[in-house]
């Protein structure tokens, strides 16, 4: 299972520290989801050797509106393995799910964000994963948490109905905010998600990373077309 993390300088802990703690907690890897103006510096191979944790190069786009977001998608799509786009407004949510080059719509219900059947269908067609962000459940209490839970329930019902792809994350900004997969699953179960559903959302990050790594590899030409092994240099 994988978790998507904000590393220093976006968050408080370096990629190495997050990976180390994630490894101790039972994760197989982490997706780095820093913003474009706070990208971290790390050596993924070294981290994998030392802690046995796979680090996936990702980026979270934070934009004021669809036009700016579109520019960022063009700029960064080729560079990174997993491309996330922070939602939270109706315009950005809509832009993200209609854009097959975006991998994950992050935090769609934050702020003014909302989600409906139209977006869910578009997300399924374009393979855009909708994120279930558990940080409000873990970190808030009282009214704000009730609000976050009711938003999450709505999102779950829509996503389930249209079979849209999804990912699950606790959205940690430091190694202290990381929670082990079993704990996240236990929290999910209490708020109405099934065990298998939660685990699937944590595994989805890996499937996404694997698919995109294959696409980034040199033998890949386009979906369904691949350079074969029979071509030999004369």
């Amino acid at each position, binding site marked *: 299972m994988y978790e998507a993390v904000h590393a220093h300088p976006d968050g408080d802990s370096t990629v190495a520290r997050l990976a180390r703690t994630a490894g101790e907690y039972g994760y197989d890897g982490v997706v780095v989801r820093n913003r474009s103006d706070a990208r971290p510096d790390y050596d993924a191979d070294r981290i994998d050797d030392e802690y046995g944790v796979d680090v996936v190069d990702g980026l979270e786009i934070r934009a004021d509106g669809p036009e700016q977001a579109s520019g960022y998608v063009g700029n960064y799509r080729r560079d990174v393995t997993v491309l996330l786009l922070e939602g939270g407004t109706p315009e950005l949510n809509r832009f993200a799910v209609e854009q097959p080059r975006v991998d994950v719509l992050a935090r769609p219900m934050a702020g003014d964000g909302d989600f409906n059947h139209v977006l869910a269908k578009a997300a399924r067609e374009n393979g855009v994963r909708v994120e279930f962000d558990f940080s409000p459940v873990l970190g808030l209490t009282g009214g704000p948490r009730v609000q976050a839970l009711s938003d999450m329930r709505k999102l779950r019902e829509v996503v389930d109905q249209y079979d849209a792809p999804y990912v699950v994350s606790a959205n940690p900004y430091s190694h202290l905010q990381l929670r082990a997969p079993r704990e996240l699953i*236990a929290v999910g179960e209490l708020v109405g998600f099934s065990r298998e559903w939660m685990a699937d959302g944590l595994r989805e990050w890996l499937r996404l990373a694997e698919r995109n790594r294959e696409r980034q590899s040199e033998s890949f030409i386009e979906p369904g077309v691949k350079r074969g092994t029979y071509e030999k240099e004369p």
Partner: protein
Amino acid sequence: MKHLPKHLRPKWRYLAVGIETWPDGEVERGPFQRELWYAAQNLVGDAGSADADLTLLDFEFEDGYGETIVRVRHGHTDEARAAIACIDEVDGHPVGVVVRGMSGTIRACEEKYLGRRGEFSAQRTVAFENQERTAVVRNGTYDVRTDGSFSGATELDFE
């Protein structure tokens, strides 16, 4: 009062919990217990909290690292896990918590999952983001003191 006969006594499970804070974090037993009860109450309500009957047994905390055992009624361990996961601050100090394992006896719980404190921590001066900083070092983790707060790093960041 006379003890209950054995078949009527509640069955318990014991969760080994690891606690971590920044090096300046101070977590005491009482406040941690209170946070745990609040977390459970907020998550599963009064009825659920009474069922799970969460109690802290051992509690040790020093230099930003601690361990404890949480006793929970058999069959309510998932609620306990969820409540523990929802503890994010104790006395204003951000904390990381993890359930290291679960056993049917306190002794097994201690032997299998606790006592991993490791070597004592040391202060060291490191270069972090092109500046000289002091860091608290333990078992290859570096908590670097930056202006008024900390950044978490490991030895790999200083190679």
